[in-house]
């Protein structure tokens, strides 16, 4: 039951982009086409689960064990950055088609604050390892859900007649606001 609540609440109710404001940069940046949105979502899912797993282990077996909690921010960001690099190298070697698909999105993920944010939140919420994995996976699915929906809307918007000053990012933000309003309908679900 606990896992179901985690899943529902992180995909719909506390959607990572539309209600927690994490990962807005890729949300605005790579949402012009549905194809790229799908690629980005897959890369985020992959890295986020891996990063949460590794940072959880580091927090519990290194930082807590030696009383080094104040190094959390520094360690986590370095771990995530090197993890992304390793994933890139490994994928290139063993799964070239996957690398082709995810390749260009991987470096962008280092600066995706959702990955670091979820790693820290998992520690703050005192989840155990399995809960952490479920939590990060459902957050990533929520991210994918919002990103792909938004990309679909933006593709349609290409043809719309937008006032001069609102073109580009401003109208995208207003659209995201309306999408966030729609997502507010899910609150109270859990």
């Amino acid at each position, binding site marked *: 039951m606990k896992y179901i609540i985690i899943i529902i609440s992180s995909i719909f109710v506390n959607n990572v982009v539309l209600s927690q*404001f994490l990962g*807005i*940069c890729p949300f605005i940046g790579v949402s012009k086409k549905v194809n790229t949105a799908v690629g980005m979502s897959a890369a985020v899912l992959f890295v986020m689960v891996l990063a949460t797993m590794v940072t959880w282990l580091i927090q519990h077996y290194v930082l807590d064990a030696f009383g080094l909690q104040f190094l959390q921010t520094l360690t986590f960001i370095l771990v995530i*950055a090197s993890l992304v690099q390793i994933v890139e190298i490994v994928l290139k070697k063993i799964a070239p088609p996957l690398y082709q698909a995810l390749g260009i999105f991987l470096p962008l993920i280092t600066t995706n604050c959702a990955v670091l944010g979820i790693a820290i939140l998992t520690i703050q919420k005192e989840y155990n390892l399995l809960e952490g994995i479920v939590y990060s996976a459902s957050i990533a699915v929520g991210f994918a859900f919002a990103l792909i929906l938004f990309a679909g809307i933006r593709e349609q918007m290409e043809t719309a007649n937008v006032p001069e000053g*609102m073109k580009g990012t401003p109208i995208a933000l207003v659209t995201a606001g309306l999408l966030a309003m729609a*997502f507010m309908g899910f609150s109270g679900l859990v």
Partner: protein
Amino acid sequence: MNQLQNFSKGLLRENPILVLVLGTCPTLAVTTSAINGFSMGLAVTFVLAMSNMFISLLKNFISDDIRIPAFIVIIATFVTIVDLSLQAYIPSLYESLGLFIPLIVVNCIVLGRAEAFASKNDVFSSIIDGLGMGIGYAIALTVLGMLREFLGTLSIFNYKIFSGDGALMFIMAPGAFICLGFLMAIANMLVKKLK
């Protein structure tokens, strides 16, 4: 470059939020009130100025291949300083900014300025650049915070302007996106006029 120009470019012409569109996540999340936006702006200004200074000082010792991780370590150090000091001295603020203090590390502005400016220029101009960009960021955050606080609760900096209730939606997520969208459109028009 003229130091004054160097300082003022971050205020509007290259404003990190409204024109460059960097660091949007904390912008949307912390601007539920003017005071939160302002404090977040100050925290980022501190991190920007200090990390710009240190990166500029160390630029000759950091080899090109590992410069990004080195920059991140320097930035993370100052973020940790801000994080721990806020936790110790202003716990209420720490509570309301929450997760977004450690997330200054991945704020694109800080790394962006390190890479684009501090790693190429002398110490003094780097500090000025950091301060200018940081203050531009703080201004944008404060304005957005004021706008949202006013529309949401009809008060600014906790000071009640009109009696009655505002539209609560502006304090919540949708209002953040919509307000920033309009603010950005206004800034775009201003920049165009200045040219």
